[in-house]
């Protein structure tokens, strides 16, 4: 009996809801933690970054036009998708991070739980970060958190799924679109999450996932004028990228401890602005 030859998967970029190879036609080899060849991943170009940013810009207004409850439900559906593919995610996390199966599955489970945690925030950030302001004078004054727009994310280099959830989902909760540069060495879970986002009722283009060489792509993303927020968690040279981001006053979140339910709302606060409305009061 001959052994069945396995059907191998090509990992593509996720741009604008489509799964595409890099327009440059390039790819790079991804190895597991033990150095064995795992797969070829697309090696995105500068133009792929620009295309992804444009797709994110196009998708964000539709996302923020959803009710907050619906955004929460869609993100919860993403958690349902991830839970259903937990075994597959666990295999890839194990290969990428060199974990045994149980540890990898536990990491995926924590990531899914974190995703559920974020989903619940969608219709609550306004109540926690906004509110009425008791100004002097005949005015009704209230403040609401508003998304910055498009957030560029340099995904954590090491935590290929669990850490990625924080970086990718936190900006979505508050109404932003994201362009993610996946971990260069461990990109596969990010691509899988991109695939799931395409089937979880997220508007096409809301989540864009690029794989490739970060020293080539990071500066393009950081300097892009249409990128309004930048998460540098996975950046090897955050100072240089932060300096590029300053040209268009992009909001920057530097790497820090991973967000946890106990760890506060830093990641949720990082990519919102506050709009305050004054309305006159008088008969």
């Amino acid at each position, binding site marked *: 009996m001959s052994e069945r030859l396995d059907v191998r998967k090509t990992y593509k970029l996720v741009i604008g809801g489509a799964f595409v190879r890099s327009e440059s036609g390039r790819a790079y080899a991804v190895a597991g933690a033990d150095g064995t060849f795992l797969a070829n991943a697309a090696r995105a170009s500068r133009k792929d970054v620009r295309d992804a940013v444009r797709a994110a810009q196009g998708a964000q207004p539709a996302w923020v036009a959803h009710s907050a409850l619906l955004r929460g439900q869609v993100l919860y559906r993403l958690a349902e998708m991830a839970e259903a593919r937990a075994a597959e995610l666990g295999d890839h996390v194990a290969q990428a991070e060199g974990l045994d199966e149980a540890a990898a599955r536990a990491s995926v489970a924590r990531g899914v739980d974190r995703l559920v945690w974020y989903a619940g925030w969608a219709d609550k950030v306004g109540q926690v970060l906004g509110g009425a302001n008791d100004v002097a004078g005949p005015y*009704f004054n209230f403040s609401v958190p508003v998304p910055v727009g498009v957030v560029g994310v340099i995904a954590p280099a090491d935590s290929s799924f669990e850490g990625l959830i924080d970086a990718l989902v936190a900006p979505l909760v508050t109404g932003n679109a994201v362009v993610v540069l996946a971990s260069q060495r461990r990109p596969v879970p990010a691509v899988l999450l991109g695939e799931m986002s395409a089937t979880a009722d997220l508007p096409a283009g809301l989540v864009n996932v690029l794989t490739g060489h970060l020293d080539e792509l990071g500066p393009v993303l950081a300097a892009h004028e249409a990128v309004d927020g930048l998460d540098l968690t996975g950046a090897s040279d955050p100072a240089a990228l932060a300096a590029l981001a300053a040209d268009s006053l992009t909001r920057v979140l530097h790497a820090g401890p991973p967000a946890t339910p106990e760890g506060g709302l830093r990641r949720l606060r990082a990519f919102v602005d506050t709009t305050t409305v004054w309305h006159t009061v008088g008969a």
Partner: protein
Amino acid sequence: MSSEPGGQGLASTGRVSRLGDLDYAPAPESAAIVSIADAYGLYIDGHFTDPERHESFATLNPATAAPLARVARASAADVDAAVQAARRALPAWSALPGAERAKYLFRISRIIQERQRELAVLETLDNGKPIRETRDVDIPLAAGHFFYYAGWADKLAFAGFGPDPRPRGVAGQIIPWNFPLLMAAWKLAPALAAGNTCVLKPAETTPLSALALADILEQAELPAGVVNIVTGDGATGADLVDHPGIDKLAFTGSTEVGRQIQRRLAARGLPLTLELGGKGANIVFDDAPLDEAIEGIIDGIFFNQGHVCCAGSRLLVHEGVADEVLRRLRRRVDQLRVGDPLDKNTDVGAINSAAQLARIGELVAAGEAEGATRYTSACPLPAAGYWFAPTVFTDVAPAHRIAREEIFGPVLAVMTFRTPEEAVAKANDTTYGLACGVWSEKGSRTLWVAQRLRAGVVWANAYNRFDPASPFGGVRESGFGREGGRHGLEAYLDV
């Protein structure tokens, strides 16, 4: 007037189309999607059990007055068993990580969504409200409340009630018949999210959707005893109020019963929230967007047959537009389709019970006797069941009973005003304070009025809007405490 039940407006206004009769054809939802058992027990400690004394009562379909099922009448011993089950379940439930409690609530929300059509039909059968409302309002909002509070279960430290908020313990919860499943969701979702366990007492005339919810809790594999459901009448509710094993009581219902409960609990210092009656006013200024205002007035008083604690049962209209508003209002009232609640075209369904119908009839008779002018839609009413045609009173004086007492039916009392100050004074001329509507294109005046209204909720150019994220509740004799939103957590947290 149209001679058919549910006759449509074009016919009633005398316009004849070349297409002939444009009445809506009946579009009934099938009741076959629901299977109702002959008899239901009490849901205690994760099981349906027979009541100790084997007593039961019938729940009716108010649209036909035909019995739907027999439901257990819980005795004091049954209530005790339910409270004990909740006490036993409390340590494990409250110690569960918030994220895990959240997952149970998310499951419940999802299952309600999956079974929403069945639940909508069941609610309409047992309550009499139109399927359009159960389908579009009651059931989606119930699912939404579980979803919303699921998200709070692991975020309590961020809710602004201190760094380590604790559950209160066992919550006794008594709910009314006007939004049966939705009221159950309003009570259970925040309580469970905060780590409490619950004993829920549904209304005597509408227990079936709460019993269906018990089945949903089973599907969600909620641990036994976390939610217990005891059916019965006022005596069962009193047994729950008096039980020494509860740590919190939440009641939605009439102001009179709320007063009794507060009195009964006066010596115990038990945390209490009361969501009681109302006599809401819709205030229409002369610059109001009239098309929207008319729809808002109609929705404010005829939504759910007026069985709404925050119903806009008083209309205060500026003298300058009173004639036009009343003319358009009568025309719109004539267009309301009253009849089979399962018909998707029905606007106004059945009155929930014979007792409520008698109460409405008494107050309407008082309105006529006291000299107000009655206008009632000439729509035909079904022969069986409990029905009351949409009614509008003009020439109403502030001292009339129909201007002061909660009618809880499809009856509107209209008064006029000349200045914003007079509108505010008349709106506040009530012992209640649940909700008001303000209709004006001038935002500054709307906010000026809103600041002066003694009401827990003020809608501007809208009425009867509800959302899981928005706090709801009254001031003055409409009760205290809030349900919904971040504020709704406070009732179930020991902070």
